[in-house]
């Protein structure tokens, strides 16, 4: 943590970032450094952008099975500005509040972006989690049925946000595991 170099970032900007995110000063500066390292030199950090490929090849995301979804959810027009990276790190930080985490987790898991986690989404999640090709169709349907049985309160065969939130709020493990450390690498 201590190795972060100090960069010319305006004091007000830094303070504002601190106020608007869950990150500490040091973390923001570290992310800033990482960001500058990745983007073409000589650019002011506010104008520079990273491609989603660059971001998903960060050490923190490189092996994450949901990296493309994370990038999709947090990027704008498929590029990351510095602030996008910051808000991503903020959501995944330890201090972020549960409701925020659940909100973004829902967006990440909602593959087809229809506002619900339906069977298709669930199957895609499972496929990514297991990362093997020999997942039988039976297992998939079985699994999705069980998940829906557990969490789908109104039996419409998909999880709305509130159902998802309800299920996740009961699981403190989710709060602990929905974390990525983007700095210090």
């Amino acid at each position, binding site marked *: *943590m201590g190795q972060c170099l100090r960069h010319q970032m305006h004091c007000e900007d830094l303070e504002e970032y*601190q106020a608007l995110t869950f990150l500490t000063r040091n973390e923001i500066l570290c992310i800033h450094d990482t960001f500058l390292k990745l983007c073409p030199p000589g650019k002011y950090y506010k104008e520079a952008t990273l491609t989603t490929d660059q971001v998903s090849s960060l050490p923190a995301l490189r092996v994450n099975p949901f990296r493309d979804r994370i990038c999709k959810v947090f990027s704008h027009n498929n590029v990351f500005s510095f*602030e996008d990276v910051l808000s991503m790190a903020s959501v995944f930080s330890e201090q972020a509040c549960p409701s925020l985490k659940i909100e973004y987790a829902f967006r990440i898991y909602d593959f087809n972006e229809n506002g619900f986690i339906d069977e298709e989404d669930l199957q895609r999640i499972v496929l990514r989690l297991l*990362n093997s090709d020999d997942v039988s169709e039976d297992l998939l349907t079985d699994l999705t049925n*069980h998940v829906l049985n557990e969490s789908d309160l109104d039996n419409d065969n*998909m999880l709305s946000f509130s159902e998802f939130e309800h*299920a996740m709020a009961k699981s*403190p493990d989710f709060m*602990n595991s929905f974390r*990525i450390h983007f700095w210090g690498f």
Partner: protein
Amino acid sequence: MSAYYRNNGYEEDPDYPDYSESWNRSWGHLKTQDYTDSPDTLKNSGYPIPRSNPYSADYRTSLDYPKSLAEPDYPGSQNNPEESGTRSNPFFAGSRSSDYPTSLAEPDYVGSWSKPSHSGSSREPGYSESQRNSDFGGSRSSGNYAGSRTNPDYLDYLGEPDYPGAQGNTNHPGSRANSNHPGSRRNPEHAGSGIIPYVDVLGEPDYPGAENQPNSPNFFWEPDYPRAENSPNFWGKPDYPVTEDGRDYGSSETSEITREVLSRTSSFRPSLRHRGDGSLGIVGRENEDYPENIAMKSMNMASVPGASGNGYVNPAYVGESSPHPVYGNPPLSGCEWHKSPEGQKLIASLIPMTSRDRIKAIRNQPRTMEEKRNLRKMVDKEKSKHSHRMFELNCCAQCLSSISRAYRRSKNSLSELLDYISLWQKTLKVIGSKFGTSVLSYFNFLRWLLKFNIFSFIVTFSFIIIPQFTVAEKNTLQFTGLELLTGAGYFRDTVMYYGFYTNSTIRHGNGRASYNMQLAYIFTIGACLIICFFSLLFSMARYFRNNFINPHIYSRGIAKLIFCWDFTVTNETAVKLRQKNLSTEIRENLSEILQENVKLTLNQQLIRLSAHLAAWFVSTGVAVACCVAVYYLAENNSEFLKNHKDPGAVLLLPFIVSCINLAVPRLYSLFRLVERYEMPRHEVYTLLIRNIFLKISIIGILCYYWLNIVAQAGEECWETLIGQEIYRLLLMDFVFSLADSFLGEFLRRLIGMQFITSLGLQEFDIARNVLELIYAQTLVWIGTFFCPLLPFIQMITLFIMFYVKNISLMMNFQPPSKAWRASQMMTFFIFLLFFPSFTGVLCTLAITIWRLKPSADCGPFRGLPFFIHSIYGWIDSLSKRPSYLWVVWIYQNLIGSVHFFFILTLIVLIITYLYWQITEGRKIMIRLLHEQIINEGKDKMFLIEKLTKLQDMEKRANTSSFTQERRDVEQPGALYVKEHDAAFDLRFRRSVQEENPKA
């Protein structure tokens, strides 16, 4: 939205009055079925009426309206929402000939919707309509409406073209008529929202007419902006300016009609989605009847994630091909978001907050940085406006705010500093990234214990040890080196042990400042324990609160397995391994569920039961045998020591105890081969209970030995002897763990990797390791009284253990294959640390202090009959001094009084009982609510089924005229694109034109 469909049901249902009774959801759908079965005729008959009605022109004014009318068989089932939207206006319904029951029924539903408890927290479009229509509800309740029903004037009034005239109508108060007007205007727009799901279908690639519509993309996407802008308005804000509504309506509604026609053959899915939205709304609405809808409120809150609901819930979802970010806001409103009504509302709600809360609330908004920044700016601006007005003269407020800002800054930098010095941040992150949260929880626990010990050490060091140093006598004993292990010899006359401390009052200089060592000793240890007690209690309570939120568990936890992917893991091999493990675990879980349904035969059950019984019997027997062995060993130890003059002989007892602690838990874990638990969780818990039973009973038996035999034997300075024993136990335990890590685990790895490769790498046994920590901590707590430096020693051992375990973990282990319920286990561990361990320590120390006679020649309490007499003596001496009488009073009436504690206990019991009853009530409440949600779901599914059937029917009916239709459809679409921009103007003009002739 499904609620909305129901409203349609009212109007179009021929036997409506029945329906009003059947509002109770359980049989409501039967009635709706009636309506859905005969929609065409109704609609056809109803349809021309709006056209002939001047008002309807007023509402609709849409360009496309005539066109869609020209359509031969316009009334598809999809049109329902649209049309009925207009009709849901009582004026309209009234104008539909003598259809009075309908208009009567409508206020009914409006009334039930517009209960104040729901205002502003709605997500479903249907609800907002209720807000808009609430005046009707009002009018009904005031009886005006009822009057108008029987009054033929009502029809006249409807037929009257001049609106101001209507205002003068005696049946309706002017203001209401006024407010009705915008309401009616908004209605069509709302109807538009009802159609949105069908629009989705257009966005989907499988839209049948898409290829014939060159302009369609343009035409599909553009209306999204107004709708999105619109949505907060018709979902949340009843008092949004009418003109804007009108404009929005103009642009979105026009397209809707054409699209509606286009999507006659729409797939069913989108509407399903849309209903999904509404479902929670229904629940919310119907639960208003519950007297305590606390839980429901939270449900509502859940369905409205603040402002986030806006873009996200918007049913205008488009497929993945969508160029817009579906989440969040459409691009147009991206930075303008805060200007939207919802944003305004948020800003308004943020203004009265304190600056800290405000920052927190803004931070918690799921929005981009830019939006948050704008939001903050807006709020600050508003705030400064307010504050200028309010505190213009008050410079005190400014002063306060600057102080608070400075405070915030200093707090920030302080927390940064703490963050900077907090131990092992990076190591913990590496562990987390390789082994996941479960193993990380062990290290967090270790770190937590370390903090505990650092704190205890600081307290004892500053209040006992430093004062003792100032009066320390010269140590004459020789240091050989073996003392490090035995704790005897040289260490006997150091600050380490109780016996070294003086009982005198320390005075320096002229004797003005005095320090009573006796009191300092007892108070410091007491304060230490009390602080430990409370911090344990609070952290335990926090864990319990977080982990046992739901009173009964509905789930088997598969959802958690799937959604709780450990994002912290960033190591590639770890991720692969985790994926593999997860797949086996999921399979296991599924097979478990299958097995659960399989009833075991009586024989199998008996076998299983007997296996469990035998295992329990053996484990308890082993534990008891160990205890007995330890007891006899300890009893005979003194004789043994007399015979063996070797100073190392004292190490025998701790060695045996450590051997037991090392070997027996491994024996216990072998039991799993015999008894097969259905759930791995049960296995873990059983193992934990057996282990903790063993360890605690060994400590218990040792305590018994110390307090009853060592203390009563009349040996010189028995406190120091006990301190030495504890020191040796602790040290031996530490040595054994070190050896275990370096040798045992290393050898196991070698065996696993080189010789028996089928074994593979071992997994880190979190439970066993945590129990070892708990055991050591218990010893430390007991020993603090006899050996005040023990926290310091434990601090060092924990510090070393962290690194050793870390290295061993990285070298010898693989991540655990079971998804470990880390948080729940942590709760359990802290509970264990609290209940048998800490409570036992308190009992032991209480017995020591109240019942035992301190040794006569050493220690701070020498010469007293009991330890507690130091307190009595102090109180006595205080009572002679008048200025300290309050302390005496407090002692006599509160701490020393039985009555006080009796009353206190009674009160606490009563409160506990009340809380328990409240929890029971809440449980019932939750169960009811859960049942209700399930019922709602069934209800919804039934409706959806009906609708699908209907659509299928219609599809079949329309296939013949499909080609014809398409041609008709293309035209309005093309026209629409041209006229889209001007839609608002034209609509407005037309409405004026149409009003004029009537005038």
